[in-house]
């Protein structure tokens, strides 16, 4: 069991994915891309959950259930977010996030 890929590899992968997501979230101007970045962040967390579950508590299943929940929530979140984005497009005829800035003082 303990032969194979060590824990650090999983964590490094998850970290890279996480910060890629954060970077994309902060720099991309397209709302769809921002949404994709959010999905990246969520999935990196999933990897962490799975890895820790596998390596620290091999006889328990909490981490796996958590990941399943996150996947379900992420799916519905994507549906809602895309609905919002479509509405934003109808309203502003753009999905550039810099042009959608009416909510201010």
């Amino acid at each position, binding site marked *: 069991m303990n032969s194979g890929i060590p824990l650090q590899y999983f964590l490094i992968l998850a970290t890279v994915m996480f910060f890629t997501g*954060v970077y994309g*979230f*902060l720099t991309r101007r397209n709302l769809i891309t921002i949404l994709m970045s959010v999905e990246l962040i969520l999935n990196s967390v999933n990897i962490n959950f799975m890895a820790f579950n596998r390596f620290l508590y091999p006889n328990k299943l909490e981490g796996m259930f958590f990941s399943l929940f996150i996947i379900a929530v992420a799916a519905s979140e994507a549906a809602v977010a895309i609905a919002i984005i479509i509405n934003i497009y109808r309203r502003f005829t753009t999905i550039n*996030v810099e042009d959608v*800035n009416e909510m*201010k*003082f």
Partner: protein
Amino acid sequence: MINFSYTIWILLLPFLMFLLLGLAGHKLKAKLSGLLGTFGLGIITFLSYLTAYKYFFTSEKIDGAFQKITALNFTWLQFTDKLHIDMGVLLDPISVMMLIVVTTVSFMVHIYSLGYMKGEKGFERFYSFLSLFSFSMLGLVLATNIFQMYIFWELVGVSSFLLIGFYYQKPSAVRASKKAFIVTRFADLGFLIGILILSFNTKTFDFISLTNPSGAAISQGSSIGFLGLSVMTWSMIFVFLGGAGKSAMFPFHIWLPDAMEGPTPVSALIHAATMVVAGVYLVARMFPIYAISAPVALDVVAYVGAFTSLFAAVIACTQTDIKRVLAYSTMSQIGYMMLALGVAKYGGETGLGYMASMFHLFTHAMFKALLFLGAGAIIHSVHSNYMTDMGGLRKYLPITHITFLIACLTISGIPPFSGFFSKDEILAAAFQSNKFLFAVEYAVAGITAFYMFRIYFSIFWGKDTQYQHTPHEAPATMTIPLIILAIGAAVSGFIPFNKLVTSDGKILETGINLVIAIPSVLIGLLGIGIAYIMYRRESTIPDKLAAMFKYSYKWAYNKFYIDELYLFVTKKIIFRYIAVPVAWFDRHVVDATMNTIASVTQGVSFRIRGFQSGQLQKYAFVFITGAIMLAVLFIYLWK
């Protein structure tokens, strides 16, 4: 025991009428709402007469004395077991008598107003206010306890305010209504304090237990003293302050002449016959307490009454606005009633003044309402309040002339009209107890006759004024009340008041006292004679006299500058030394604190509002930076 529970309708009907006319009046035709109001009051008048008949002629007497009957009583506000405020209907000789006075005069005024107020804007509003007034006045009269009386007392004040300010587009009317309200309200503060002191010491509001001459309430409290007077005396003096405010006694009299800005029927109803005698009624209501445990307060009543009657009579001789003359005359006559109460004692022969006061209240209501309504008819046809614009009107207004003459003879105390009888009783009562007060009242009787016939001669005789429009007699709706009241004023002197309304409810033996009656008639005739010489024809005597007594005339003409004194005290002293500093403190300390808080908040938020840019990613950046900083903090600095 006769059932009097229907008397609740005497209170409910005018209130319902007020609601109906006040809420739905503008949807009805003006004439219909007037007729409705009059009809409603007709029913109440009928009920009142029925009550009076049943009370005086069929109710049981104990030891030959009329009993106080609580027709109805229920707890209105229950605070604790002992402290509760009741509402109810109390019948005793004076309240039943006041029922007759109020409903009769009010009914006459309702009919009269159908003609007088015809075509006025707000006709139905006028009638709804009249109903409100009737309701509150009847509630005051029938109150079973002093707190109920106080509540209705204030309601009467409000309806008086509303009716004086009926022509609310006229600045003088607005000023007058404000003045009346503030002055009486100020006096009512005294009334409230009096009630509180009284009830604190006697532990009751109820009139029957308060005024039971052998009851516990009267004997309590008289032992406790303050500044040399017993607590009961103090409370009675304070209660009298309230009465003095409503009854326009000196020094609270300043509102009454100005109140004449209201429509004339209102002056007749409120400011002559009913509301202004509420003070007299109040003192009469509390009379056993005054007489038994607060004789000093009763002396105050007597002297204030006597002074006011003289003071007002002198001013009345110089005024030229007929309604104002009548207003001062009212003050003078109420002074008479107060004086009569003040010289009376409880029970038996010495209670003559009490009966005389109530008698005079009754006859005064009749003849003064008649005088005002007559004045209204004159003003209606001449379109002026000033007697300088009038003269020789007897040819044009025959009915008004005759009824006005009857009223003038009545107030001057000429037999066989009613004023003679009631004034005679008052003078007799004063003669019995205090010769000085008697002398004052005797002089006032002469002055009264003089100023009444002064206006009578100047209006109906005197110079033949040329009128732009020929004056015409008033319509029947106005003359019929005049005729009815004239009959009332003429014959009400024959009502046996000594058998009906006395201080202890028992029969009081009285008769015409020739030693007093003959001189009082003579001085009345003398006053009429002087007025005849001076005003029967156009003459220069009045002007010469005025020039001769230049300064005293000027003082009296300007009402002895009491109004100016009030203005001086309020404006120069109270406003400058109290109101202005308080306003400064309010503006510069209280308001300033709040304003500083507000402006600091505003300034700060103005500076930081740029953070809310609407840029989603800026927010996300700040959020993530913050999250990372927190993470670093927890990892490295959290021990």
